[in-house]
């Protein structure tokens, strides 16, 4: 049986969010950046589920439904964009995609 305080869950959620954010900041590969975004969404859902459980309500859990759906749609569209980008430019390193810069 797992027992942990709300603080522990919120702290873990913050750490996961920070790791995802670190990936988004530091990595140049668009696919890994997407994985970082997913990790941040999952960290947010963990906090929502923990709050929902400790407050004995269901609303946070239902909200996680919606987050899961939006995340799935986002991944589908984002990866389609990555594939289109790769077809046109031959790279998915975000450093080399700077045609709007000048």
């Amino acid at each position: 049986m797992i027992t942990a305080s709300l603080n522990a869950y919120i702290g873990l959620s913050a750490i996961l969010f920070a790791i995802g954010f670190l990936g988004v900041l530091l990595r140049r590969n668009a696919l890994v950046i997407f994985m970082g975004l997913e990790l941040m969404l999952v960290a947010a859902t963990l906090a929502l589920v923990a709050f929902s459980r400790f407050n004995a309500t269901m609303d946070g859990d239902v909200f996680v439904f919606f987050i899961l759906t939006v995340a799935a749609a986002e991944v589908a569209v984002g990866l389609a964009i990555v594939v289109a980008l790769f077809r046109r430019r031959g790279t998915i390193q975000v450093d080399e995609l700077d045609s709007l810069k000048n």
Partner: protein
Amino acid sequence: MFNALFVFIAVFTVVCALGAMLSRNTVDAAMCLLLCLAGVAGLFVALHAFLLAFLLLLVYAGAVVTLFLFIIMLIDVRGAAVPPRRRIATAAGAAALVLVVAGLASLATRGRLSLPPPPPGLPVGESLKAYAELLFTTYLLPVQLIGFLLLIAMLGVIALSRKAP
């Protein structure tokens, strides 16, 4: 406060998340993400959100990570040279790390989240009923909006992945 099993799952999840973000190989990153999601699903089970744990595995592990692997296969990016890190990105990462550590420290020392331990969860059938009731009464409009959003995403993906003339 918390017991060994929680610590084990938490450390496992964090290590896998770090592996996903820091590994050079994209396939390794996707696999680490998969393990990390399994750890989060375990935490959901600990929080008595059984349906959400199942959905997380189904949607993320079953669909999202598989999609990532297909895309990695489709656009072969092996052998891409690793450019040196920009200094500003490293500085931003360090600042974010300091902020997170400060936030965690203040949560640990001054956090007032000491809710009473939760009551025993509903049995699985009852909790499914509660989900359904909320989804089809209070949150009926968001459910329909989400359905519409999925339709638009589907159309968008079809339009994006057409071959350019």
